């Protein structure tokens, strides 16, 4: 009896293990949180105006923030392909050139990605500020932004 239960439990664990492999294997290929600029370009006309996320790096020297119009222009790159982005509203405080970003919106026929949401993808690196430098205080900008 006890032996049978042990086999049943082992069987259950084996089924679970197989499930993990199956689910993970299947999802690995199918779950795409964002497209890279190269993937976006490869899809071409078929994805015009479809809501999607685009992720990559903010290309150096491409950021243009128009305060009056509250419009942000920059180029997202994966090192291979560049996609110009036009976004409305202020970006998050961590947004800067060279930073990883994920934008939500749609790719238009004119070759510009219209974004309504810019998200900053920061790295897993954490360091104290260098000698003579002060740490930024992101939460302060949040308070001011929401309070005004």
């Amino acid at each position: 009896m006890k032996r049978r239960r042990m086999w049943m439990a082992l069987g259950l664990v084996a089924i679970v293990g197989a499930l993990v492999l199956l689910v993970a294997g299947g999802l690995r290929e199918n779950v795409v949180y964002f497209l890279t600029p190269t993937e976006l370009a490869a899809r071409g006309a078929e994805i015009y105006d479809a809501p999607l996320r685009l992720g990559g790096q903010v290309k150096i020297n491409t950021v243009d923030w128009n305060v009056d119009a509250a419009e942000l222009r920059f180029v997202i790159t994966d090192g291979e392909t560049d996609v110009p982005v036009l976004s409305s509203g202020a970006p998050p405080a961590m947004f800067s050139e060279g930073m990883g970003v994920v934008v939500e919106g749609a790719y238009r026929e004119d070759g510009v990605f219209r974004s309504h949401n810019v998200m900053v993808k920061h790295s897993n690196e954490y360091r104290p500020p260098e000698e003579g430098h002060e740490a930024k205080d992101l939460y302060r900008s949040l308070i001011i932004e929401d309070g005004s």
Partner: protein
Amino acid sequence: MSELSAPSLPPTGRAPLLAAGALVAMVAGSAAGLLLVPADALQGEVQRLMYIHVPAAWLAMLSFFVVFVMSVLYLVQRDLRWDRVAASSAEIGVVFTALTLLLGSLWGKPTWGVWWTWDPRLTTTAILLMIYVGYLVVRSFADEPETRARWAAIVGIVGFVDVPIVYLSVLWWRTLHQPPSSPRSTAGEFVYVLLLNVAAFTLLYIYLMVRRYRIAVAESHLEELQMEGA
């Protein structure tokens, strides 16, 4: 009646000592995280959330691992003590999974720019919370202790599938959430403070388990008495 149940409750002799240890460790961990080390150069003060967000996530995973092991043990040995340990651990895991999501959300707004996004790490963690809330719901449905333990054990084993998926999600898929930090990606002083807090949370888990298990024993006594009376 009290003569019947009271002597068979597990002793609490060392529980206050454990509570004191957990408390001291948590105060020390928070003090170190808030005062001893500087804030991250890029993120500033919000980065200090790491010292509770990461330990909370660790506790959630530890809790569900214990549920998994106890569920297997129960199915093999059919000893209700394992079921009580599993139930206790699942409750603690649910609390700390919710805490992880909450702290992550508070951290996400000033750094990512959003409170929430359906990226694989966040989505699989939300599923994790639902699985173990489901585990507790399944428990509440069954009236008979053995039936309840058996169904719970199956959920406790199958549900554990999601735990490695949550951990590996940031390595398998594209996410907004960053991959796990390591001593190579994080300054040494930050790592020590983080480990101190992980140790403090682990002590807290052990203390909560001792207490919750005792309640579980009392509950099962009560259930027995009710069944005899019925």
